[in-house]
């Protein structure tokens, strides 16, 4: 037995292999190629969602299979996390699904890169879009071509813990409320709860449901129409961040650690963990199911309080169903889209799991089977879409966001957090935000 460990035995074998392996794997993980088309005979369909949505899809698809026994559907589904990472990898590897649920926020990016199949030639033939409004169809239209069928109406609204509010002896605000009203009631929540609960989750970094509406009230959009620039000014964002700084200072909004924990994690949402009574995150009740026990209610995003305020709300398209361009089964995929858009049973199966149904006919079909909260949700959505359609000064619904949009939304979130954590002043963070944003959109 040697007294010590010899260099030879140790390094020639173990470490040599380990080092080579370690270095190799970090590099080889990052190569890829492009390919096209799915190979198996089945039509592959994929979506993200909650268990409730999965079950609704499966139930509806089972009926479709019964009516169309020639089309064999292979279903894959998961949560939102990693859904598009997987989709990207599948496309690069040549195994993209034929039919997929698409995010309205990402449709432009994929359409412009030639991933999605244009559907114009099917509309009015095998794809019946009777009853879909123009604004709704805009959600699936990129550069004048139609790529995706919207599943329902998406509106920006606040989700309110109504029972919590009543317990504190506070009244649900009127639907025609302002940003000042929100501040007032959020401060009241903190006072009346003895400091246990904040009012509303921090919206300073929340884009889709929140800042975009604020910018539109000032006649500004989030992205310019060609998607190459931001559509709002530094002054607008400054006013916005100052509003939320004030909200945090007066305990109307929770401290940044709570906001940060909820990033990408609904279960940590301030309303879900009982730290606030109002949230801009529609996901708390988004997929047709609630993740809190509280009785929820809904309110439009507040607006007003300054000169020249105009209607900032807008109607969006829920999620979309899209076919991929490389697929050999686009025609079959369109049949399935049509089935979800028009078939009575499918509409009833899907309830509100993909948003408020897109057509009058569909909304009537599901009306009878709704829960109390579903009804409140639909009422508020109805209220908003009517207000938007009546408004004379509203901007047209936003164009589908450009590539890099999700990076910019994340940048907005992190920027607000940097201010909230006191790492940056609002002024310093503003110039950093605009610098980085132009880098992302330009490059």
């Amino acid at each position, binding site marked *: 037995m040697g007294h010590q460990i010899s260099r030879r035995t140790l390094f020639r074998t173990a470490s040599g292999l380990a080092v080579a392996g370690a270095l190799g794997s970090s590099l080889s993980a*990052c190569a890829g190629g492009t390919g096209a088309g799915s190979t198996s005979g089945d039509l592959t369909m994929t979506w993200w969602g909650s268990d409730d949505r999965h079950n609704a899809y499966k139930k509806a698809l089972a009926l479709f299979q019964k009516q169309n026994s020639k089309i064999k559907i292979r279903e894959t589904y998961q949560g939102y996390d990693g859904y598009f990472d997987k989709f990207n990898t599948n496309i690069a590897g040549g195994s993209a699904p034929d039919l997929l649920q698409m995010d309205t926020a990402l449709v432009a990016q994929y359409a412009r890169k030639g991933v999605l199949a244009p559907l114009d030639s099917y509309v009015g033939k095998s794809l019946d879009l009777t009853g879909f409004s123009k604004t709704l169809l805009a959600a699936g239209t990129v550069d004048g071509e139609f790529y995706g069928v919207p599943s329902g109406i998406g509106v920006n609204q606040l989700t309110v813990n109504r029972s919590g509010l009543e317990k504190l002896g506070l009244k649900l605000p009127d639907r025609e409320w302002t940003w000042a009203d929100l501040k007032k009631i959020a401060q009241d929540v903190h006072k009346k709860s003895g400091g246990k609960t904040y009012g509303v989750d921090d919206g300073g970094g929340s884009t889709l449901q929140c800042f975009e509406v604020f910018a539109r009230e000032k006649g500004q959009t989030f992205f310019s129409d060609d998607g190459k620039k931001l559509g709002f000014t530094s002054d607008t964002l400054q006013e916005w961040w100052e509003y939320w700084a004030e909200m945090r200072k007066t305990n109307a909004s929770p401290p940044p650690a709570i906001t940060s924990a909820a990033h990408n994690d609904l279960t940590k949402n301030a309303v879900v963990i009982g730290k606030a009574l109002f949230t801009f995150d529609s996901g708390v009740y988004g997929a047709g199911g609630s993740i809190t026990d509280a009785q929820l209610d809904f309110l439009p995003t507040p607006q007003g309080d300054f000169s020249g305020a105009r209607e900032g709300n807008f109607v969006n398209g829920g999620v979309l169903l899209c076919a991929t361009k490389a697929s050999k089964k686009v025609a079959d995929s369109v049949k399935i889209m049509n089935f979800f858009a028009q078939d009575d049973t499918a509409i009833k199966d899907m309830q509100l799991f993909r948003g408020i149904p897109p057509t009058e006919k569909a909304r009537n079909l599901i009306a009878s089977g709704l829960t109390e909260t579903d009804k409140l949700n639909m009422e508020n959505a109805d209220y908003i879409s009517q207000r938007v359609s009546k408004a004379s000064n509203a901007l047209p619904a936003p164009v589908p966001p450009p590539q890099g949009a999700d990076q910019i939304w994340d940048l907005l979130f992190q920027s607000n957090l940097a201010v909230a954590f006191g790492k940056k002043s609002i002024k310093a963070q503003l110039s950093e935000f605009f610098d980085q944003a132009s880098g992302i959109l330009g490059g």
Partner: protein
Amino acid sequence: MTTAQTGEVVKEPSVPATPSDQRERDRMRRRLARRRGGGWWPYLFLAPWFVGLFGLTIYPMLDSLYLSFTNFDLLTPAQWVGMDNYNRMFAEDPVFWDSVHATLVYVLVSVPLKLALALAVAMLLNRDLRGIGLYRAAFYLPSLLGGAVAIAIVWRQVFGGEGLFNDFLGWFGLNTGQDWISSPDTALYTLVLLAVWQFGTPMVIFLAGLKQLPKDVFEAAAIDGAGAVTRFFKITLPLLTPIVFFNVVLQIIDAFKTFTPAFVISNGSGGPLNSTMLYSLYLYKKGFTDLQMGYASALAWVLFLVIALFTAVNFIASRYWVHYDD
């Protein structure tokens, strides 16, 4: 045998042979001839390894080197952009520097702590106690579980605002309600703690090293009046330096490549404020989420070079502090 395999002529011995010797030698020669002629078949057995080496390592590496000079986005064909990706990284990308900072802190804090703990526990477990096997297994367990997503999720719960760690502090009246995971000042250190907790692998290697140390030297030292501390620093540590070196090299490489815990604990965001944006996570985000595979490939090559540099420095420095027997 050796010469025959390399194809050189086998010389006849000059001593006259008996008939049985001759027969033996003929048989040997035939066998050698057969071996020389059938030289292809060992390669057949090696083929799977070659396929793996070239198909899964060398080719993808070269491919990624090529892609690092392109704007490949996974979805459309790549276009050559020269050094753009590398320039952008160093000159225009603040998040890159955030990730470099986070990764260096992570490596330089977690590796020494982890190795110190591994050695301390290995010393404790290097004795003949009853049920010692059980203790060793128990201490190794975290490393078996460590890479798992499940553990990272547990970590997120433990160090969250309402988590066990705060409950624990609460027993001592220290609960500040701090959310360790979602504060930019502490988030990275929860990752460091997770890494240190998984000290099992270096511990096992230290234990193997300790087992090989000569008992007589320690006995002699003890008789001469050397205390436990003196024996550790004057005998154990110097004799163990090859093992320490081995662990340092491997743990540094491992730490540079850490991905899973950062991904899971920050929900894939690297937040708050990029404080947990470890390099591998940023690389992944760029490649698969932001559709910038060309840029991600460039990031991968920089990581490769940095790891190679650290390893080379380690090897050079080792000449001055590692003692070998041979």
